[in-house]
């Protein structure tokens, strides 16, 4: 093997996964517990694990690679633990209570279904800025951008002085309709900077139109607050990752992943755009694998310790979610759409002593203390304990043997807390628990597919994550996928996906442009001019940022896009513009035609409704620069007998009885091999359970295809 060229690292809530890739597409993965207090510890431990697997030292590894990608949880943790900066807020007079009222759904977002129904548990998240440090100033701009009331500068100045006296670390500014006309926000920022300078202190100033110039002030407010609140410490964490890499000889800057699927340097000016990045890697990886196998309708499913994330690519289209939730705050960040349910191997199992009702989670044992079988102080039985009790996990080979699973300990606790309460045998109860988890995931998958309005037989399921393959059989059973695929590097698939991303910037701005159902040429021309002008400004801004990151101008390509809807609708469709500029009425018509096509693809061709006219609600632009990417190697199919990967036999409990299951080493499986269940295919970082009668076939890309009997 040659030397790795890319290191991709994905720090999840429980584990930090590393993937090393060389120019010929060889992979090695490493795994280590996430260390939220100082992420660089987990980063180095995970990288070291991967370097060991590759057979090189950390110095050799870091000094030889071109790209280090890291997506972590630092900022999210800052937000969750409320350990960010001390903020002050200046807003339009009359809107001061916005921080307290929030959005109604923020009071129950992320709750379990039962708690959502029990209003007594509802609670708004603690605001990031207290009401007493929120100041209203008189000013008003209307939805057309016209100034209705001038800015009362003396009020802004008094507010700035008060905030400086309150010793805030950052001042955020958010006024109504600043995305249409930012004049007042800009002037308030100037006044703040003057006062900060006069006071001789260092305070950051953030304006909402710079962070996200788009409509809906609550999400715009949350975006600017979170940027000011959480990214300073997040940047420090990323800096510590970069320093750790440099200590071992890395020569360049560390890259991180944006929530809409691109890479950026850790000096990114709007770092909150990287907060939801972990699961995004999976969708990118799926798109890449989809190209290899020639299917552009894919469901990717990631099961880790805490959650089950599902991403959909429908006939080549990924969905962008514009207002995702983060720590129960509705944000305004374009994010690749994911559906998530609480389902993972770390789920804590509970049995109600009165009604014997079993519930999974929603709490997860995480990596600390972890499941009982880890023997790190966990006392509540989890799904992973059930997997260990049933012989599906190898007690001596978990994380390649780094963690010895205490099966007896898990068994005793599970018997006492679950099986005995239910009054059934330990194995029966444990398998029942796993069945429940898999049924939850199975239902969630069915729901996601039916939401696409496309038959499941068109979709390929990609299963990954540390516990994805372990529960793959149950999760996918009976849905009727075209194909079900998992990977030797399943545990680091998200990290792998990150390595397939390009460097990227995404700039956009809200607009209110309406085109009638049967537009005149002149109207189209004038709309086209408006659109082109916005795109030009966005391109200048995006390219400038990429140049600042050190990319050469000729390597940067820009692709404009539009968010469009039929006039009167409530949801937008993202349309990638077929043209770089709109020069004529014909060009504008081409863009409208493109919208109709995308709309028909995402929904259905009969649901088009051009008579209503068209509205352009947002104009944007994606700037990208290429990066070296891994290639999966195609090898000829060999013989089907997998004897060369066979490593023994273990008793495993599947389908109500114990089986003597064949054990295989996942990394030793070769193209052409066929494994027939009951079997267990092990990897240091993941385990694939093959149910009796089911089959696993290894194709020429060394992808593992799971076939139900």
């Amino acid at each position, binding site marked *: 093997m040659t030397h790795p060229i890319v290191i991709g690292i994905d720090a999840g809530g429980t584990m930090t996964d590393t993937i090393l890739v060389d120019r010929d597409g060889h992979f090695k993965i490493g795994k280590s517990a996430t260390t939220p207090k100082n992420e660089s510890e987990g980063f180095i431990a995970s990288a070291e694990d991967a370097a060991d697997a590759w057979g090189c030292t950390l110095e050799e590894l870091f000094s030889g690679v071109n790209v280090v990608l890291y997506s972590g949880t630092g900022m999210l943790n800052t937000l969750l633990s409320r350990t960010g900066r001390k903020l002050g807020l200046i807003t339009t007079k009359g809107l001061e209570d916005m921080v307290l009222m929030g959005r109604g759904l923020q009071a129950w977002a992320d709750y*379990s279904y*039962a*708690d959502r129904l*029990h209003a*007594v*548990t509802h*609670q708004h998240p603690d605001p990031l800025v207290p009401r007493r440090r929120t100041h209203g100033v008189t000013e008003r701009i209307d939805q057309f951008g016209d100034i209705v009331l001038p800015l009362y500068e003396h009020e802004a100045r008094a507010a700035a002085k008060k905030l400086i006296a309150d010793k805030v670390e950052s001042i955020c500014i958010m006024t109504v309709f600043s995305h249409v006309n930012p004049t007042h926000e800009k002037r308030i920022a100037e006044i703040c900077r003057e006062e900060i300078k006069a006071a001789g202190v260092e305070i950051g100033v953030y304006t909402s139109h710079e962070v996200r110039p788009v409509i809906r002030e609550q999400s715009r407010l949350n975006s600017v607050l979170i940027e000011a609140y959480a990214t300073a410490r997040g940047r420090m964490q990323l800096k510590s990752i970069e320093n750790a890499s440099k200590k071992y000889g890395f020569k360049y800057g560390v890259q991180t992943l944006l929530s809409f699927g691109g890479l950026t340097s850790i000096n990114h000016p709007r770092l909150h755009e990287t907060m939801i990045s972990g699961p995004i890697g999976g969708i990118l990886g799926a798109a890449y694998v989809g190209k290899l196998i020639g299917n552009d309708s894919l469901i990717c499913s990631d099961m880790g310790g805490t959650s089950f994330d599902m991403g959909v690519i429908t006939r080549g289209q990924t969905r962008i979610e514009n207002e995702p939730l983060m720590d129960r705050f509705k944000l305004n960040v374009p994010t690749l759409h994911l559906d998530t349910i609480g389902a993972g191997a770390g789920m804590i199992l*509970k*049995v*109600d*002593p*009165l009604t014997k009702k079993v519930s999974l989670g929603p709490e997860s044992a995480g990596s600390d203390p972890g499941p009982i079988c880890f023997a790190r102080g966990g006392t509540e039985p989890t799904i992973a304990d059930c997997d260990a009790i049933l012989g599906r996990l190898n007690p001596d080979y978990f994380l390649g043997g780094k963690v010895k699973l205490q099966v007896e300990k898990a068994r005793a606790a599970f018997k006492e*807390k679950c099986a005995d*309460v239910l009054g059934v045998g330990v194995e029966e109860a444990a398998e029942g628990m796993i069945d429940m988890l898999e049924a939850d995931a199975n239902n969630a998958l069915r729901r996601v597919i039916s939401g696409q309005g496309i038959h499941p037989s068109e979709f390929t399921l990609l299963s990954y994550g540390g516990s994805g393959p372990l529960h793959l059989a149950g999760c996918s059973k009976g849905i009727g996928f075209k194909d079900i695929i998992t990977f030797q590097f399943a545990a680091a698939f998200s990290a792998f996906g990150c390595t397939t991303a390009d460097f990227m910037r995404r700039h956009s701005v809200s607009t209110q442009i309406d085109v009638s159902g049967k537009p005149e040429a002149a109207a189209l021309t004038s709309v086209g001019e408006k659109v082109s002008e916005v795109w030009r400004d966005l391109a200048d801004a995006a390219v400038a940022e990429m140049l600042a990151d050190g990319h050469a101008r000729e390597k940067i390509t820009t692709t404009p896009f539009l968010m469009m809807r039929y006039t009167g609708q409530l949801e937008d469709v993202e349309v990638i513009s077929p043209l770089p500029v709109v020069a004529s009425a014909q060009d504008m018509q081409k863009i409208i035609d493109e919208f109709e096509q995308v709309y028909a693809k995402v929904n259905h061709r009969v649901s088009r409704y051009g008579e209503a006219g068209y509205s352009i609600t947002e104009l944007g632009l994606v700037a990208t620069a290429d990066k070296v990417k891994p290639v999966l190697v195609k090898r000829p199919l060999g013989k089907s007998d997998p004897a060369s990967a066979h490593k023994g036999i273990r008793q495993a409990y599947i389908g109500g009885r114990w089986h003597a299951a064949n054990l295989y080493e996942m990394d030793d499986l070769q193209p052409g091999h066929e494994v027939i269940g009951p079997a267990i295919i092990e990897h240091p970082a993941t385990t694939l359970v093959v149910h009796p009668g089911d089959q696993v076939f290894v194709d020429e890309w060394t992808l593992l295809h799971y076939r139900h009997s």
Partner: protein
Amino acid sequence: MTSYSKEVIADLVAGKLPWPQTRRIMSAYKDDDRFFKYIQVLQDRVGWNDPILLPVSEHLFICDSPEGRVTKCECGHSFGDYRKNWKLSASIIVRDTEEALREIYPTSDIPDPQWMEIREFICPQCGTLHEVEAAAPGYPIVHDFEPDLEGFYREWLGRPLE
């Protein structure tokens, strides 16, 4: 199965538990021994020794006293037999004029005193406001409930009263 320490329950009753922990307790299955720990916490709070059988409101309890089961205020004042409506032995303020209602709603709308009056039931000994009733003028004082103590202890708590 689930059980919390008496200190946790004491903080819960006093409203001193942090919100995330309070919510976890609310979302979990009810702890088996909650009622008895709750009673212990209340018993520690009151200044008298008659065993509490059932809390009626925040500072009002049914307890087992030498005079039989009585409704008792936290201060020790007895309202008499628990099967009788304790409100009849309380001091009562009736707000049935605009001025009287305006006293408690100084800045907002008030009900029409011809249609509704507010009755406040107060302990004659310590002045604690135990209950408030909003009723039409002339409507009899409501007997909130007469608990089936024997049935509750036997069937719900599994520990019959002697």
